[in-house]
């Protein structure tokens, strides 16, 4: 849900994963999904990873291939950046791997659903594949509902199903995955993946997240190491003669207040709850304190983040619409200058440039260099290595599975290959023309036909290739390299842990509490009470459940 790159490959009209989430969160405002997100955290585990022993035998070997040398190589796991598009493309798969069969695939889409008949983009990619993939595309905001019904009836499941991690239905690990989907361990584990070099090029952490109950089920859509940033409107703030120098939580509070001028319709900040958790290093789920598991909700960091956010709201620097929980319009407020600081996914950066540079060439938003709330050294927890994955329908037909994997291998072709180029940009002369700088300029047909579809099935490693926005690749790559220094594995990083169903609703009260405490409707003593209730209602049992997993590692 967070990083930009792979989707951004799809070009100018694509929406990246982060904005899906933002939209989901916006939908949240509409349908009350905040808890969906929480549901996603509670059902889709976090995880610690240093090549976990039991998992090590199950995931594919990592055999990296590099077709183009990045201008900004990865530093500590940051996303590599490219300043230009390669002149010479490499064909990574020699001949079309398909047998001419037709497969059904179900994917979400945050955009206009493309036509299925006469679609030249489908024709081009299916031609490369040698088999036809027929898409059943559903609006991403309601994808979870459709999934729940499709998965409830195993015989209706299409051959290939994309599932975003935040749409993982309850009981997925315990009841669904083993009954409905194909165990890929016998096909991909260890060196078996060598038959599929582009799949072997996907980093191990992304694969680890696809392991359920000790077996490899998913094909990943890899994400970046760090996905969130706190942005400010550099163009506007500097235009006001204010120099941005934020080194602590108090600095940020002061800046937000300084920028606020309600009578002029301008507020310093949007709701900064996610940024608050970042600068306070709130653990995504668990942390170890003296050998004891401490849950996010019980941690001092969580408490401090809430206290800080409540201070921000009390200062009056938050836009009233954000106070009213209208999260869906957060970007609109920020991009129109009604707020000047907001938290967003890194992917929101290039989207904002896409949407604003044409009408406002001086538009520039910049993420703050990371800082800790107390002014010390920041600790940033890595994001899930995969936010979207896909599964193959269970089948006794070995040839069908190997063929689908061969198709996946082609679809996972990395940046710099002809396959990736076609999947990203479509056909030259049909979906794009090249400008004087050699950059693809999409044609009107691209807007209807070239929507992100194949990439939801499987994707190569993340790269940063938005060369069309001047200065962007350099800015994001240097920022990421700096931030990646502070990136740490959270406990249970990259592990898929299916929590028993009875813990499903434990986190719900905290979603509400975060809103209530931030807005001053409840106090921190209510947090204490909620934690006590949480422990009694199953929190301590949940701890024991995770302790067992920790002990086994």
């Amino acid at each position, binding site marked *: 849900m967070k990083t930009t790159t792979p989707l951004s490959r799809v070009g100018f009209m694509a929406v990246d994963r982060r904005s899906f989430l933002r939209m989901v969160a916006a939908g949240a405002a509409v349908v009350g999904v905040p*808890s969906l997100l929480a549901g996603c955290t509670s*059902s889709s585990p976090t995880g610690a990873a240093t090549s976990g022993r039991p998992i090590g035998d199950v995931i594919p070997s990592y055999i990296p291939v590099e077709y183009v040398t990045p201008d900004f190589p990865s530093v500590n796991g940051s996303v590599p950046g490219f300043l230009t598009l390669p002149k010479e493309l490499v064909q990574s798969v020699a001949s079309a791997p398909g047998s001419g069969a037709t497969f059904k695939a179900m994917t979400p889409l945050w955009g206009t659903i493309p036509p299925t008949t006469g679609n030249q983009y489908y024709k081009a990619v299916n031609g490369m594949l040698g088999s036809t993939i027929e898409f059943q595309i559903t609006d991403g905001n309601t994808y979870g509902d459709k999934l729940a019904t499709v998965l409830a009836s195993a015989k209706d499941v299409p051959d290939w199903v994309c599932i975003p991690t935040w749409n993982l239905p309850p009981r997925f690990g315990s009841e669904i995955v083993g009954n409905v989907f194909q165990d890929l361990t016998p096909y991909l584990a260890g060196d078996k993946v060598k038959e599929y070099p582009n799949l072997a090029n996907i980093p191990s952490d992304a694969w680890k997240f696809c392991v359920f109950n000790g077996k490899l089920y998913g094909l990943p859509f890899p994400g970046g190491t760090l996905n969130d940033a706190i942005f400010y409107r550099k163009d506007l703030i500097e235009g006001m003669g204010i120099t941005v120098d934020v080194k602590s939580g108090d600095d940020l509070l002061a800046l937000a207040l300084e920028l606020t001028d309600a009578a002029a319709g301008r507020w310093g900040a949007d709701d900064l709850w996610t940024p608050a958790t970042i600068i306070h290093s709130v653990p995504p789920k668990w942390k170890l304190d003296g050998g004891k598991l401490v849950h996010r909700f019980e941690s001092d960091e969580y408490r401090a983040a809430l206290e800080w956010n409540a201070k921000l709201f009390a200062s009056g620097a938050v*836009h009233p619409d954000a106070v*009213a929980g209208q999260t869906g319009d957060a970007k609109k407020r920020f991009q129109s200058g009604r707020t000047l600081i907001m938290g967003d996914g890194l992917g929101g950066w290039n989207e904002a440039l896409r949407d604003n540079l044409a009408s406002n060439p001086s538009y520039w938003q910049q993420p703050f260099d990371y800082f800790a709330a107390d002014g010390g050294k920041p600790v940033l927890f890595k994001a899930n290595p995969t936010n979207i994955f896909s599964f193959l329908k269970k089948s006794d037909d070995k040839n069908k599975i190997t063929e689908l994997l061969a198709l996946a291998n082609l679809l996972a072709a990395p940046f710099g290959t002809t396959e990736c180029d076609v999947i990203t940009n479509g056909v030259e002369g049909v979906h794009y023309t090249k400008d004087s700088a050699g950059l693809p300029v999409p044609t009107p047909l691209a807007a209807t036909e070239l929507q992100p579809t194949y990439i939801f099935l499987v994707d190569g490693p993340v790269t940063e290739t938005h060369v069309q926005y001047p200065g962007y690749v350099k800015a994001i790559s240097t920022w990421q390299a700096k931030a990646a220094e502070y990136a740490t594995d959270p406990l249970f990083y990259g592990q898929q842990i299916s929590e028993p169903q009875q813990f499903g609703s434990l986190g719900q009260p905290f979603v*509400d509490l975060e809103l209530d405490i931030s807005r001053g409707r*409840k106090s921190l003593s209510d947090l204490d009470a909620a934690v006590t209730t949480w422990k009694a209602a199953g929190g301590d049992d949940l701890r024991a459940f995770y302790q067992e997993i920790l002990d086994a590692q």
Partner: protein
Amino acid sequence: MRFGALRGRRPAAEPVRDGAARWAAPSVPVRKIGWRTRLKADRSLLLMVLPAVGLLVVFAYVAMLGNIIAWQNYSPYTGFLHSPFVAWANFERVFSNPLFLDAVRNTLTITAFQLVFFFPIPIFLALLLNSVMSPRLRTAIQSVVYLPHFFSWVLVVTLFQQMLGGAGLVSQTLRQHGYAGFDLMTNPDSFLVLITMQSVWKDAGWGIIIFLAALGTVSPELYEAAAVDGANRWRRIWHVTLPALRPVILLLLILRLGDSLTVGFEQLILQRGAVGPGVSEVIDTYVYYQGVVNGDWGFSAAAGLVKGVVSLALVLGANKMAHLFGEAGVYQKA
């Protein structure tokens, strides 16, 4: 006279007060007719009603059997045939959960408040509109007040936010003239008033339709007769109009009571973030978060069933009350 055949079953009824609400039952006993004869006589009518009955059976009554999951630890992936049976455990959890009781309290508060401050408004509006003489003006007003009904709640809430929110039109205008702004949208204390305002704005116009129709049936002769007897306008409303509206008002009141545990799901879920669940959590939103979001189907089915049973009791109770007032209510025993 096929209806007559059906009606023939009914025993001679007591004389009725309101001819419009009930059939005029024959006061003379009718010769008993065998069911075969009646079947034959009403054949085509029965055939016509069959598809509707079929739909009702499949989509209402068969589906109702699904309530069995309230006694199960249900999972859609194992189905109700194989989900473990947990007896009354789900119901025990529902009643021992303080959050559910909070949701019930909020629901009842909102219903009671709206019964007093929302329910009568369409009646007043209908009376006002009925006194407008120019048909053209009347149609224009009607169109204007109906329109908001067709807006979705998302739109209504956004509109209120744009007008009465902290950065809304009213607030910004005040600020520009040197006064302090205000934010009605995020104040939990005035939330009850706010959502009632929204409901009135959106649905009061729509609510007048039925009352207007009832008003249309009042014979003008009654007004003329009252006027001849020296009744002023107020007296005419009190002695002619309102008695004519009474059956309709009571009918709608009963239906409203049956719905009383269902209060604006969308409207509330949209504003939950703004005012917090403390004042905005109602039974429906609670069931949604517990059951649908967290996959606790059995539990939420139990909560929903409790709601259904209470609603049914309310309808039956209200109907009984209506009978005591001498009105027909929603239905009567044959």
